[in-house]
């Protein structure tokens, strides 16, 4: 795939417009139904364990998992591993996003650069990060650095695409208008390119936020001495299935919180869209 084979970037925002004020019942049910399905899931889980279809080390009961969660929260292990992973996630996200923004902007502006770089980028993207993660461990050791690199790499490509699409999608008539106002390059960047590309950049950030978690965990799976990925591996080798589940759920919460933060940020930055466009 060539970068320029991408769909001609939309100048309209990609996300759906905010819905109008929902009907009171719908608003109520929208909050209730997710809780209900979660409850059903828990109930099903409880029933399966009560029927003792599987031994407890394969499917532990919800109570056992809760107990384990309280235990590892109390002795500080969960926080230790979660904060290690979170640090890797946030750094990987920052590095990957910033690199993608810088390179994406340059590629959007230069056909030559696109031609030179796209084979490398596409090759990199087509190879699963998990496959070359061991290589990264060899190069960068089993500490934070290699986790940041795996996270950054996994975040990089989607963010790069969104940057290229966003910057290329800046309406050329608006560019011409700014030229006719004798705007400097910097003014064009700040007053036109950044805000015009913002909707596409922010949807890239949302995707990246969840991918960064995957990246960090991949790094921890391959080799690490701390972090939730490491904890999962360790607990599995000790048949401590409740701990595996606790660590997985912590990752779920972490990814969800990151996504939520990105969505919140998007809503604030694009508030103008809700006020009619």
């Amino acid at each position: 795939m060539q970068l320029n084979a991408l769909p001609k970037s939309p100048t309209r925002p990609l996300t759906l417009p905010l819905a109008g004020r929902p009907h009171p019942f719908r608003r109520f049910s929208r909050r209730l139904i997710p809780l209900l399905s979660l409850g059903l899931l828990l109930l099903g889980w409880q029933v399966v364990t009560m029927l003792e279809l599987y031994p407890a080390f394969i499917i532990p009961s919800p109570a056992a998992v809760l107990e384990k969660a309280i235990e590892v929260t109390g002795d500080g292990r969960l926080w230790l591993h979660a904060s290690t992973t979170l640090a890797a996630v946030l750094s990987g996200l920052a590095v990957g996003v910033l690199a993608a923004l810088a390179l994406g902007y340059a590629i959007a502006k230069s056909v030559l650069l696109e031609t030179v770089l796209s084979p490398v980028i596409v090759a990199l993207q087509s190879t699963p990060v998990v496959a070359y993660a061991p290589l990264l461990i060899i190069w960068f050791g089993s500490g934070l650095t290699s986790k940041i690199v795996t996270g950054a790499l996994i975040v990089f490509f989607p963010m790069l695409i969104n940057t290229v699409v966003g910057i290329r999608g800046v309406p050329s008539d608006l560019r011409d208008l700014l030229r006719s106002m004798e705007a400097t390059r910097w003014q064009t960047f700040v007053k036109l390119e950044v805000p015009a590309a913002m909707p596409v950049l922010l949807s890239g950030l949302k995707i990246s936020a969840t991918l960064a978690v995957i990246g960090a965990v991949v790094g921890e799976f391959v080799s690490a001495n701390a972090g939730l990925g490491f904890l999962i591996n360790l607990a599995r080798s000790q048949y401590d299935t409740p701990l595996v589940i606790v660590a997985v759920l912590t990752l779920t919460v972490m990814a969800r919180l990151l996504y939520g933060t990105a969505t919140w940020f998007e809503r604030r930055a694009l508030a103008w869209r809700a006020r009619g466009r």
Partner: protein
Amino acid sequence: MSARITASELAAAYQTPDGDTLPALGPVSFHVEAGSFVCLLGPSGCGKSTLIRLLAGLQRPSRGQALLDNHVIMQPSRRVGLMFQDANLMPWRTVLDNLTLPLEVAGVPKDERLAAARALLPALGLADFEAAYPGALSGGMAQRVALGRVLIQKPDALLLDEPFGALDAMTRERISLDLMDMWERQRQTVLMVTHDIHEAALLADRVLVFSRRPGRIAADIRVTLPRPRRLEDTYGAAFGQIAGQVRAAISRT
């Protein structure tokens, strides 16, 4: 202030994907006298937009020169204001902030730019809309904001490329009359591309009709109707005669 626009043996060509050159315009030579209002008509694809881009300094000619007063146009200038068929507003800025954009780019202090924009709002019929976002505006209102945005930088010349071409007949008539009013007070030089004979004859001092691509001047018709003009003038015989002349010139292209 107003500036004289000159095209001297001006021609433009584009490169086709197969490497051929496609002549798009000219060569044409003409003057737009300082402070006059000239309308340009011609078949679609004859190079009208290309001419506007050359005069705006957005594109280099393949031959000849474009001049503003006696200076060769080499790059865009604040002295020349531009307007296209689409309003091209920034959807993330309010009406007020869209209006002040050119002043912001020029480094005018904030209170001055706001004062200038607020002074323009009533004449544009946008008095109650300064805090609105473009998404909430009708096509006509958006184009009024675009008109205000180009007038606020007090250009010496205006290049308008079918500015009202996307509006319905009634809206375009009202907005073109408003443009005429504002022009009669300021007397910038105006070169306006239009495909509306009626609009051209009502607004212009002179109507240029271009031939098919590559566009050249096929007719140069003076509109001698007295000013200030009003919509009622268009029912008169003198107006009808000029409109007929323009129509005849177009059908010969």
